[in-house]
């Protein structure tokens, strides 16, 4: 009896001992893929001996608020938004062409930053906010405004949610995307008022249609300066009557309505749940979410402590394999894992569009649905083809300058195929990688690359071939 008790006590101690001994390679791989893109073996080795708290604090230390890679030169030039209606056809065409070139440059720049950054968590969270406070090039029609929105999202990516909400509401790209750019008294446009409640703060079901109509009146008078696109308040166009939102009445303006949204604990719960789905698993635990959301609310919406708390849950450390890799996680993650650095990231932006994640152009205001929805017959084959070509001789990248690149092509536009022929090569030599990191067994290769057992385990054999088989295994599609 005594002996049994001792055994039980030891068993209870084991997880604690394991933790004290460090998170191990599996834990390090999990933490790296969830807080960044891919997991390079060198980084795995660095984090493996650390405790959970040490490792989490390491990845969250001093997050960047500005990109490491300088954005394209045109991003910081003063903005002069074209007035298309007043231009002759040829000028319109030239401007649209420039817009398309710049859009692709912007997408390539961000992918390059995700690969290059020394603060992957910053990019991971910027991508989260891009998919939360959604705007898209298809309607904003200005890569310049989208680039500035991206800088804003990064600046506050791990900062304060309330600050971010107020700033994004005044952000010119958002104002164009959700029609606050020209919102006048007597004829309010409900688009922003609806989406700010449904998708940015409270979540569906936590407001009434009446709340939306009244809030839309509060946002009247907001506008953009012609030319610069800067936010402007036009009091004459503002409805200064009494509005009743959530049962509270007052002569609210837009920012006061945002304040009312932040006062509601539903907002903290909504954002926490969404972040759980992004970082932990598709099945948030309601009790943990309530606890984390309460902390988020009480902190005045500080983002970094919330992220830290999510990464410190037991659920996180048991969640390996529960998330489907997004296209960007798959492509950039593979570059990071295998030390690959393309000279030009624009072709990678086109690949990602084919895989269903066209950066700066989410499908609609709800963003990419993610999870299982990343995988359908078309996108799965495109993923496998990417990996098969990358590791089976290499993927071609364009050698030419911007003029060589196709722009604004459809999902499988023939002009895109034309580009692929003019490419130089991005080649993943799996044997070389295996040698560099002393990957000498199927077991070890699986643990470095996969969160779960492979669906079809490779036979032991040539190391390069084993790695290639694991890349093409269904389990490589999950994190």
């Amino acid at each position, binding site marked *: 009896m005594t002996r049994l008790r001792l055994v039980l006590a030891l068993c209870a101690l084991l997880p604690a001992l394991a933790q004290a001994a460090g998170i191990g390679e599996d834990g390090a791989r999990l933490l790296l893929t969830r807080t960044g893109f891919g997991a390079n073996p060198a980084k795995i080795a660095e984090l493996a001996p650390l405790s959970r708290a040490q490792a989490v604090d390491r990845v969250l230390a001093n997050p960047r608020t500005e990109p490491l890679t300088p954005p394209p030169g045109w991003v910081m030039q003063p903005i002069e938004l074209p007035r298309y209606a007043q231009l002759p056809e040829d000028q319109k065409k030239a401007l649209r062409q420039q817009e398309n070139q710049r859009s692709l440059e912007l997408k390539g720049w961000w992918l390059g930053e995700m690969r290059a950054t020394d603060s992957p968590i910053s990019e991971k969270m910027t991508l989260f906010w891009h998919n939360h406070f959604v705007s898209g090039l298809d309607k904003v029609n200005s890569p310049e405004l989208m680039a500035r929105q991206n800088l804003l999202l990064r600046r506050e990516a791990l900062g304060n949610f309330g600050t971010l909400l107020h700033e994004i509401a005044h952000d010119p790209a958002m104002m164009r995307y959700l029609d606050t750019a020209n919102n006048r008294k007597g004829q309010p446009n409900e688009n922003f008022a609806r989406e700010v409640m449904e998708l940015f703060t409270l979540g569906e079901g936590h407001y009434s249609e009446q709340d939306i109509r009244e809030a839309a009146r509060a946002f009247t008078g907001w506008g953009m300066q012609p030319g610069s696109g800067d936010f402007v308040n036009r009091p004459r166009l503002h409805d200064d009557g009494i509005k009743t939102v959530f049962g509270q009445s007052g002569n609210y303006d837009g920012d006061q309505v945002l304040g009312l949204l932040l006062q509601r604990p539903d907002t903290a719960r909504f954002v926490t749940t969404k972040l759980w789905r992004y970082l932990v698993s598709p099945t948030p635990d309601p009790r943990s979410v309530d606890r984390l959301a309460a902390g988020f609310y009480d902190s005045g919406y500080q983002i970094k402590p919330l992220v830290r708390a999510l990464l410190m849950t037991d659920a996180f450390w048991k969640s390996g394999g529960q998330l489907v890799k997004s296209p960007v996680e798959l492509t950039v993650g593979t570059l990071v894992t295998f030390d690959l650095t393309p000279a030009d990231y624009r072709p990678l932006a086109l690949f990602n569009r084919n895989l269903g994640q066209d950066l700066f152009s989410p499908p609609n205001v709800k963003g990419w649905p993610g999870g299982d929805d990343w995988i359908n017959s078309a996108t799965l084959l495109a993923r496998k083809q990417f990996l098969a070509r990358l590791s089976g001789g290499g993927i071609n990248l364009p050698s030419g300058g911007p003029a060589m690149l196709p722009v604004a092509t459809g999902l499988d536009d023939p002009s895109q195929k034309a580009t692929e022929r003019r490419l130089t090569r991005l080649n993943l030599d799996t044997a070389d990688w295996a040698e560099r990191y002393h990957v000498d067994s199927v077991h070890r290769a699986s643990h470095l690359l996969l969160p779960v057992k492979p*669906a079809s385990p490779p036979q032991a054999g040539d190391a390069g071939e084993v790695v290639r088989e694991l890349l093409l295994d269904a389990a490589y599609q999950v994190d």
Partner: protein
Amino acid sequence: MQRREFLQVLGAGLTLAVLPELTLAYSADPAHYGRLLVLVELKGGNDGLNTVIPYASPDYARLRPSLAIARDQVLTLSERAGFHPSLSALMPMWQDGELALVEGVGYPEPNLSHFRSIEIWDTASASDQVLQTGWLSRQFRRAPLSGQFAADGVVLASQTLGPFEGGARVVVLNDPAAFAREAKLASDMGSGNAPGALAHILKVEGDIRHAAEGLAGNGMAAMTAKHDPNSAEAQGKIPPPPGAFGKAIKTLTDTLARGSQVAVARLTQTGFDTHGGQLATQGRLLKELAEGLASLRSSLQAQGRWQDTLVMSYAEFGRRPRQNGNNGTDHGTANVHFVAGGQVKGGFYGKAPELAGISDGNLDYGVDFRQLYATALGPWWGQDAAAVLGGHFAPVPLLRA
């Protein structure tokens, strides 16, 4: 539910399935899956009032000071309503009596969120009910297709599965040739006891393997196809329809021409969420839609399949009768939808919009969207619609007897 509300719902076409044992009798019937169902999603919520225009109503011009289509532009269909001028390509179909216009399609207690409302449509749920599976997935689980079908359905011009969510064998088809080429990259492990995310990936791999041969067009199906190489289409007389929607139509008709068998095709046309600058955007989209549907009809007539095809449009909602200050319209409720096919009895159905007395409000619905689904499941496929839709919804009598 209060009794009065209940009666209103009954009036709108909902009655209870009082004889559940009928379900059993039905399910033994062979399905007529050889009859193709083409669903056309007008994503974002098409503005029905500027599609089938109630031009005779003085309230139309009152509610749409800058968006109303001028009377002399409207293509007259009846003494009260007519097409948007961009829909002229649909006139032959209308004049031949193969196009039904179902007005006032919606559901009780409408939800004005794009995302929740399309979920209601895709799962065929009630407004306050959350279902996990698409209505077509439920149908194909109840009555699976025979093995000669390449897949339950194909999805074109969209990455979301919509009504196929949750189990149907479905293929997203951007480029059929590439699909055939790459399908060997999918393994055929079977999803067995894999954990969640992985199980889904393995299931999709299985669907790919199954569909590959059928869609490549070199299997048995191609040999029994009705496709005539001397047809107008094969000889290039049918011009390709415009835009991304046109391209999806072309991909579909090419795939069918190769003899591939599917029960459902779902095509998506995006961009209908016209909160601002609606006139130009909707005009362009409706033109693409009309020319795409006209092309679909020509191609399927040439293939000898138009008699066995039922085309139905749908969208998450219609738009607000009263325009907003940006020359656009906000989210609304009831909407008009197209149903077309060789066996469709053309004309107006449903409930014409009642604009009198409307200021900021929305339209009432007259046809529950699940009645359209019941029409496809019941009279079209010979299936037990009630078992899939969770209750009896009266089919809309728009098919020829």
